[in-house]
């Protein structure tokens, strides 16, 4: 996945969504699926770089990984697909169908409450 592009997109959206000029972003929540996966370290690094000097500087980035659901064709058990061990968690058979993977989503942005305007100091 393109962690740098992802990081830049998050920041562009946060800036566009900022309710008031100068409102700082404190936290961003994104989610991704198992196939539409992100590398946490790389996206956090990219986010930190791209956030520097913007309203997102210092914001926390939470990355949720949504499991990919599979349904066993043998015992009909719904289970989380494990790439390293692709078999039914109940009967152990590896005949299953995969559900849709979660998309790469920007879920929410948390803004800091705006501080009262301080007088201009010259």
């Amino acid at each position, binding site marked *: 996945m393109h962690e740098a592009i992802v990081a830049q997109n998050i920041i562009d959206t946060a800036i566009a969504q900022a309710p008031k000029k100068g409102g700082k972003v404190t936290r961003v929540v994104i989610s991704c699926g198992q196939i539409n996966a992100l590398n946490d370290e790389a996206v956090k690094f990219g986010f930190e770089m791209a956030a520097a000097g913007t309203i997102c500087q210092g914001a926390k980035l939470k990355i949720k990984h949504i499991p990919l659901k599979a349904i066993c064709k043998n015992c009909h058990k719904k289970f989380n697909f494990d790439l390293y061990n692709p078999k039914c968690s109940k009967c152990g058979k590896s005949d299953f169908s995969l559900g849709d993977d979660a998309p790469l989503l920007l879920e929410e*942005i948390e803004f800091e409450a705006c501080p009262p305007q301080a007088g201009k100091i010259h």
Partner: protein
Amino acid sequence: MKIKVNKKILERNEDFAESNRKFFKKKNIFCVNMISSPGSGKTTILEKTAKALKNKINIAVIEGDLYTEFDADRIRKTGLPAVQIETKGACHLSAQQITKTLHQFDTDKLDILIIENVGNLVCPSDFDLGETARAVVLSTAEGDDKCAKYPKAFAQADVLLINKIDLIKHLDFNISRVKRDAKKLNKDLKIFEISAKTAKGMERWFKWLINAKR
């Protein structure tokens, strides 16, 4: 203060992809996005496809590479129109690049557009180009463990071309492992065993392409 956004992060690419998809639908063009590692034989597959089908159906090709016009030149030698996109370092094609390139073809007369993506089994999978179908190519010399290592490429494809099957006798390549792993990720995946060099199995790919267009 919390704002719920719930927006796709690569939305800008998806907007262009959607407009490409609408364009292909309107013009009745079947567009294939071909993805693989470098050296899997994509261009050779396209050269052979061009030679076999050029008198039956109108095909054009978009070639993606970091640098050079080599591949577009190879396709043009077969008589097909081809446009090269040099990404100058980018590891994948974007939907916007396709949008910008489309006007270089006579799209009123086009039946099939094949986009040969930048050779890379990772990044191109993340960028929808608005294609009608996605083809992934895996050549036998790359090894039989690639489906689990690079799942997205296989999970999102419509067709898997296992190329260079003429080399199997020299390799430890377990073709049933590939098929099993690929089907686990994608039960509807069509799999063709081919050798673009010897033409073995290519008829089935040609037939699929022509039928898919209809």
